[in-house]
């Protein structure tokens, strides 16, 4: 027997699949693969995993009128028209390093969907490995999916975040880039509609950019040991309730996923209002 200690694994490895696993399940009728894109024309439309359906982040994952995530009814319709049943394993992947796939993962968990997984490395890794792509839009027989009541323990709202400032038992994690954290940049030019009136961060928040959790080469998650160290070094530990935020809640879903599923923290919330709510609201305290 080898004397070297075993590399610690993720707390919930079952929510993560690799590209090879997906490649081996393309014909598996109990698996539904969905590509979640911010920009579907340049991504899903240019070729996607054979059999994968499209979740268009803007159209499918958001309420069309109020600023909110999709309603329970909209989620039931989305899953139903893509042939998902209670027994389906849903595998999400997407553009922008899986940011929007992670957001969809969080949405689905919010409505109690049981078996949702993320494809490690997302669209980027699938392309880098020259795996098969198709432009054919798949057709699945419609089902009638019934979701659960919202799971509010994984979502934070503005008032709750306000009450969490400088709390000992709760810690805020700002996952934006360092220049957004300090207020030097309000919104990157790529997203002109995500502007805020004020720059900076929520008082007391720790800045742990989402990208620090992934390997640059292929967008996969860093190892358990590296992730443990990353968060511990900033005082973000499992005994505290963690609230993640970014600009519109998508990168923070990604870090929420890391903390809740890869590290197994018991209480992690995503503040999806994020900076576009906080930095545009009157009298919200800001630190720079």
């Amino acid at each position: 027997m080898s004397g070297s200690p075993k590399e610690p694994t993720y707390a919930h490895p079952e929510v993560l699949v690799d590209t090879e696993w997906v490649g081996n399940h393309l014909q598996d009728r109990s698996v539904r693969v969905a590509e979640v894109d911010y920009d579907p024309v340049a991504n899903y439309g240019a070729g996607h995993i054979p059999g994968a359906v499209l979740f268009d982040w803007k159209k499918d994952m958001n309420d069309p009128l109020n600023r909110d995530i999709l309603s329970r009814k909209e989620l039931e319709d989305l899953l139903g028209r893509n042939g998902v049943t209670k027994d389906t394993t849903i595998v999400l992947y997407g553009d922008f390093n899986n940011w929007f796939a992670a957001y969809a993962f969080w949405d689905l968990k919010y409505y109690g969907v049981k078996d949702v997984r993320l494809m490690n490395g997302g669209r980027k890794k699938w392309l880098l490995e020259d795996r098969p792509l198709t432009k054919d839009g798949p057709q699945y027989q419609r089902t009638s999916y019934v979701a659960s009541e919202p799971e509010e323990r994984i979502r934070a709202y503005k008032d709750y975040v306000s009450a969490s400032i400088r709390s000992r038992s709760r810690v805020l994690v700002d996952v934006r880039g360092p220049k957004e954290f300090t207020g030097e940049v309000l919104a990157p030019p790529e997203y002109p509609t995500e502007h805020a009136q004020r720059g900076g961060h929520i008082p007391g928040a720790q800045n742990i950019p989402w990208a620090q959790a992934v390997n640059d080469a292929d967008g996969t998650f860093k190892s358990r040991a590296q992730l443990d160290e990353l968060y511990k070094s900033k005082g973000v530990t499992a005994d505290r309730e963690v609230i993640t935020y970014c600009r519109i809640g998508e990168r923070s879903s990604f870090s929420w996923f890391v903390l809740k599923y890869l590290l197994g923290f018991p209480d992690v919330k995503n503040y999806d209002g994020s900076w576009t709510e906080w930095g545009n609201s009157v009298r919200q305290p800001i630190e720079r």
Partner: protein
Amino acid sequence: MKILDCEYPDGLLYDVEDGTWARESDGIYVIGVAPTLGWLSGGFESVKLKSVGTRVARGQSIGSVEGPRHFDVVRAPFDCTVVERNGAVLDSPRLVNKSPYHDGWLAKLKQTGEETSLAPLAQCAANVRSRLLELRVHCFAAFPDMEIYEIGVECAAVLSKLDEIIAVSPAETTIHVVSDDPTAAIEMERWERQTGNSLLEARRDGTLFHFIVKKR
């Protein structure tokens, strides 16, 4: 020729689907990134290329390019061997955007199979046009080093921000300014006269005004 303000030199071959161009001499093809992919990306921050000697089948990737708006692989238009890589673009990925048909080439490929995805412009110009429209790609007079989107901000405030950025930027820095202030066109012309910097392009797109400015 220009296709929707994007430059597509007549003498080259193009793989419209993949967003690449190629130029042949003595059985060796120089391959690079065409405006569709270059402008879609928002400016490359990373270029990776397979090593010299690698054999790549048609449709498989010879490398990848990544910018803040888009990641993509660059595919071989035919079965080939990579015979040279442009080290300059590995060090400065932006060169691919700034000089797509000259200094910003990606690699040289030796064709080993007959089938090709490349076509001369006369055969694919209509496809290029529809692809640019589909991807909503807009090309400007010069690829910017940075962009400033100031929507709902008065032009005077936009200009003071622009001046701050220009002050700390090296000479010849190119900036794409977007404003929805109706007076922007007049103000920018005055700004050019007063500061001596160049206004390379002014374009109106609906309610938005686009300007490409260059520090002198």
